[in-house]
């Protein structure tokens, strides 16, 4: 028994196949299902947070600022000329620090996963690094480098490095031996083995590490900015705190979170989908 909408969906898929003779999945659904399937769930999640906040505000009106007045403050910030400047400063620090950490952690992670001596050497260092709080690194970085751009880069890179390494090291240990043997049999060069066989298998780990790393990096950047720079979101939050303006503190936080969510959906998700186009979609709970 097929309903008309099923038939339409089937026709649409057939047309897609004609439009893509190579048969790559086009990754797009009919527009109605696109909205219910992909856009609605995250919106519902955000709305839930908002509703909870509102409910709390109604119960304890003096404890925390209301969602509306905070939103108002956020809109005022956005219309201010300096907003983009501070946002840009913080985002730059997050990204430069993360990219440096990512670069080193991929190298060290692969080394640890493939060379026994590498694992023995780096494992205690990674465990040690995991236990040192980002706040410590922020203080140390500012004391070491003074008030300049090196301090936040250093603090971010050093704080998130151990977390990234753990992720990538775990991925390397789960590498498919059969494919590596295959690359050996067909005389792949070491560089071909890394770039064509090893790193593609680490893509899920690299994305998990990126998401985790960016979240952690922003927390470190804000701390450094509170006492180690004279611009950026952290600096603005500190200023708002000094005049006890809770609306501004939350508004700055919200705008930064919004920026990170935009990056997650606008960049990371797209790149990930692009890089995993070779994998047919899995539907575990079929409807």
């Amino acid at each position, binding site marked *: 028994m097929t309903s008309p909408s099923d038939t339409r969906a089937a026709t649409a898929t057939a047309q897609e196949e004609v439009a893509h003779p190579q048969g790559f999945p086009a990754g797009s659904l009919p527009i109605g299902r696109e909205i219910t399937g992909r856009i609605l769930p995250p919106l519902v999640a955000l709305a839930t947070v908002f509703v909870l906040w509102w409910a709390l505000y109604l119960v304890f009106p003096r404890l925390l600022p209301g969602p509306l007045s905070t939103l108002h403050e956020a809109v005022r910030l956005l219309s201010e000329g300096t907003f983009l400047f501070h946002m840009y400063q913080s985002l730059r620090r997050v990204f430069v620090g993360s990219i440096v950490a990512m670069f080193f952690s991929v190298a060290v992670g692969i080394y640890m996963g493939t060379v026994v001596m590498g694992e023995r050497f780096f494992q205690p260092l990674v465990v040690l690094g995991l236990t040192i709080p980002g706040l410590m690194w922020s203080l140390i970085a500012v004391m070491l480098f003074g008030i300049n751009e090196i301090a936040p880069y250093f603090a971010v890179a050093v704080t998130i490095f151990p977390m990234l390494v753990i992720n990538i090291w775990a991925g390397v240990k789960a590498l498919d031996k059969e494919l590596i043997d295959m690359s050996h049999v*067909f005389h792949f060069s070491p560089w*071909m083995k890394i770039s064509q066989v090893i790193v593609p298998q680490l893509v899920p780990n690299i994305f998990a590490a990126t998401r985790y790393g960016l979240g952690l990096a922003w927390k470190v950047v804000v701390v450094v900015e509170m006492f180690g720079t004279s611009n950026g979101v952290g600096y603005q939050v500190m200023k708002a705190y000094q005049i006890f303006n809770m609306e501004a503190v939350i508004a700055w936080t919200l705008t930064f979170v919004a920026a990170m969510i935009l990056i997650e959906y606008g960049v990371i998700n797209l790149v990930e989908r692009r890089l995993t186009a070779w994998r047919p979609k899995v539907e575990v709970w079929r409807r």
Partner: protein
Amino acid sequence: MAQLLVKGAEKWFRREDGRPLKILDRLSFEAREGCVTVVVGPSGCGKSTLLNVIVGLEPLDRGELVFLNNARELPRRPLIGYVFQSPRLLPWKTVGENIALALKGAGVDQREREGRVHRYLELVGLKEFVNQYPLYLSGGQRQRAGLARALAIESDLVLMDEPFASVDELTARQLRQTTRHLCEQLHRTVLFVTHNLAEAAYMSDFVVALTERPACMAEYLANPLPSPRQWSPEIYGFAAELESKVTLKEEGDL
């Protein structure tokens, strides 16, 4: 003329508890140039280990491997094509890219690669799937892509480890035919592992029969059937002859 000599090969593995486990026991045979030599033996006797030793994935504990080209001994292990039991294609690369990478590893010029990819995909009947990812192919198609990759590097020697054991019988029959014809046509030296005696009878020019683990040579037979090979009742006759000489441990392996 021989392409590969295996002389007194011995191989041990270490068990979980540390005791040694002998896999290959003074195994000697040759793979003739331009011929398909089929290695048959019971499951677990060490056939895959033998191929892994030849290709250099495992070291040999005693004995030697001699690679020859026109009766001259090669100084080092040459490039060897390998069709694995599972296709072992890189799933994030298209079929064409998978073959091109093997060609790059084999030192084939960038300009020549594309032509070769197309030529060999056409030979195995996968021409229109060059830009397809392996996970969107059927099992038999993937196995054919693996076959194209092993042949495309144009090595002197090609190893095949039960390449059709995991595809259904009808597809396997087609693939055997394709493979046998390609090997005859391209004059490749092939070492083909199987535990299917009918397959051995159809594919082989020579048959090396191994004993149970530790594997040593039980029989070395020349296939009396003519080449180019056709499916004919005589194949089952030769398979029956093989069966009388080889004892496979499991019943119903055929």
